[in-house]
């Protein structure tokens, strides 16, 4: 009783200015303390390095000696005098343009199959999700090498039909496609999200459509897809960003070279080569910022066009 009394009088007596902070602290302090580990990580490991890489992008920096300010010349060189920049950009755009829609279509297809309420659904869901967990790993990239090499699994199967296949991963005509297939194979996470989205679609719409004699095909185009567009939109953005950032498979499969003939020279791989192969940290930082701008542009573009094709209920 006495304690409670003291507290109330304490607040009344405290000067106004001081109490603003202490009241804030009393209300939110615990929350910020819980956030502290994340905040330390964000400022120390994300924001700090980002700011310093922005600075470095205007310098020549070889790691061993201190950075020299060179103004915008890194950016100028990139757009005017660097053929590998345009090669890597072309490879990455090709990868994004083909892998993202194919992966989403595949994920949606599997989600539709799984949505028919079959037995053992959780098991299948987990199994199909598995490649997404393994996808970016070194082990899978090495496995991919074995499967698509000249004497790999794919060609052994083809040999059964009398077809002599090329060495898919080391032939510049096919190597990028093996990486696209690897990416499609990791359809698990968009599939899970599609599955959740499909569950949200009210069943009575399908019942009404069936009564009106709409075919399954028509139901898909007129009910499922339009009502699923918010989920498609979300998945498309996430997967596009992922595709732009894709690095490990190309790095492992080509041994860090982007070969054969730079056909798998992803933008991130080129960035890595500049940074850690030739120790041009300044130029690599500039490349990183251009990638960030590009991803931001694509994301903004998707948001701007979304009002024309994404249907929200509310």
């Amino acid at each position, binding site marked *: 009783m006495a304690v409670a009394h003291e507290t109330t009088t304490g607040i009344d007596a405290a000067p106004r200015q001081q109490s603003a902070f202490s009241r804030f602290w009393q209300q939110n302090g615990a929350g910020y303390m819980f956030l502290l580990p994340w905040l330390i990580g964000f400022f120390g490991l994300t924001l700090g390095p980002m700011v310093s890489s922005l600075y470095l992008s205007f310098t020549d920096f070889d790691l*061993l000696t201190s950075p020299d300010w060179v103004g915008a010349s890194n950016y100028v060189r990139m757009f005017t005098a660097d053929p590998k920049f345009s090669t890597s950009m072309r490879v990455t755009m090709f990868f994004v343009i083909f892998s993202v829609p194919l992966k989403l279509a595949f994920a949606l297809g599997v989600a539709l199959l799984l949505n028919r309420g079959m037995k053992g659904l959780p098991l299948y869901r987990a199994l199909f999700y598995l490649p997404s967990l393994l996808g970016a790993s070194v082990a899978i990239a090495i496995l991919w090498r074995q499967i698509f*090499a000249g004497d790999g699994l794919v060609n052994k199967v083809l040999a059964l039909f009398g077809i002599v296949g090329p060495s898919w991963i*080391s032939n510049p005509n096919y190597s990028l496609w093996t990486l696209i297939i690897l990416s499609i194979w990791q359809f698990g996470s968009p599939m899970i999200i599609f599955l959740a989205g499909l569950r949200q679609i009210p069943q009575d719409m399908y019942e009404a459509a069936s009564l009106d004699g709409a075919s399954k095909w028509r139901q898909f185009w007129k009910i499922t897809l339009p009502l699923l567009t918010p989920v498609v939109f979300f998945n498309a953005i996430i997967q596009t960003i992922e595709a732009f950032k894709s690095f490990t498979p190309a790095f492992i499969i080509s041994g860090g070279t982007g*070969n*054969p*003939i730079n056909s798998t020279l992803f933008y991130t791989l080129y960035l890595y080569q500049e940074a*850690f192969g030739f120790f041009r940290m300044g130029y690599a930082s500039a490349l990183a910022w251009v990638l960030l701008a590009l991803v931001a542009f694509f994301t903004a573009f998707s948001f701007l066009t979304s009002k024309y094709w994404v249907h929200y209920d509310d």
Partner: protein
Amino acid sequence: MTIKLDRRQFLMGSSALLAAGAAGVSPAWAQASSLRLIFWGGQDRADRTYKVADMFTAAKGNDIEAEFLAWNDYWPKLATQTAGGNAPDVIQMDYRYIVEYAKRNAIAPIDDLGAKLAEAGFDADQLEGGKVDGKLYGISLGANSVATLVNTGAFEEAGIELPTNAWTYDDLMEIGEAFNSANIRGGMRAIADGSYSEPMLDNWLRQRGKALYTAEGKLGFDEQDAVEWYQLWSKLREAKVCVTPDNQALDTGPLETTMLVTGKAALMPSNSNQLVAFQGLVPDKLDMVGYPRIAEGVGGGHYRKPSMFFSVGNTAADKEAAASFVDFFVSDPEAAKVLGVERGIPCLPATRDVVSPTLDGPNQIALNFVANLGDLLGPLPPPPPAAAGEVDSSLIRTLGQEVGFGAKTAEQAGKELVEGASAILSRAAS
């Protein structure tokens, strides 16, 4: 009576315990300084190196914390550690990078150790190779030379006579045709595609009296040379003497992916010290000969290269201890027996004498090869310019591949090589 701890006391007590535990396992400060060692290489090299590190610890008391990586991962890691002021005390160094690291004071001069080793008869050319601007920055761990590795089992099976150091590119053509008509092991070809091997191009240029780079760091050959080089390999490729381009592209660096180990070719351009590692991966007996001559009797393409150095990091707390480890590594007789010629032929005569009788097959072959180069041997070229690595990875490797896959003609590739390399060199020099 039971002991009661409330939550706060429990936390304090357990963290005190943790702190005590941590203090207990951390190295005591009074001990002899411990050394950090970093090197590139495979498991075989690591086993030998760790064994010698343990011998040094037993003899001198310094703990050695060693770390090894593959070549491609090694340089980023070393550069990052150096930039962070956290470079290891003993650093394995390559001819290509020693100038760069020395000029930036990342490694320390070790002339005292050099003088001591010179007195013991350390090969003068190998000491010279570790000098930058007159100061010694690296102790050569062995001499080696480029060499063509030969799968003798495959030659025997195909009934083809083994090449010798006298062999030429014309002989290579004949061997290739013989392999094609023998058709062994699912169409094994004679040789890996050497068109994008920088050392093989270098060797071929030297035989023509040219070089990859001049002492001033400029390009040492012209478009005509480059075009002829690509034409030579196009001819070998068309005649199916060398492996197909998509097979060659499977070679991404690790020994396991090379054409010799995957059994696609019976010959492969490599280095003399690598025979030991390759023999561990190939069931057939391996041998080695020089790179082919451009014509009968033409020599001078090969040279005795310091295969790698040990340097002392400039941030090392105890440089003397680090230098004494390097000294131990190259001169201790017991260490020499463990190391063999895996890093090249030892440069101290006393060490060579200890090693020579202990050598088994592949090591003996490597030693004999480097000791008997004869007229193949030419002078040591100047250290390559800093941008040589970029010329190799951005141009030599890519252009050879482009010609192989038919994306460019030999003429186009030759022109691009000379123009591109000149541009890279002048950009790096500015």
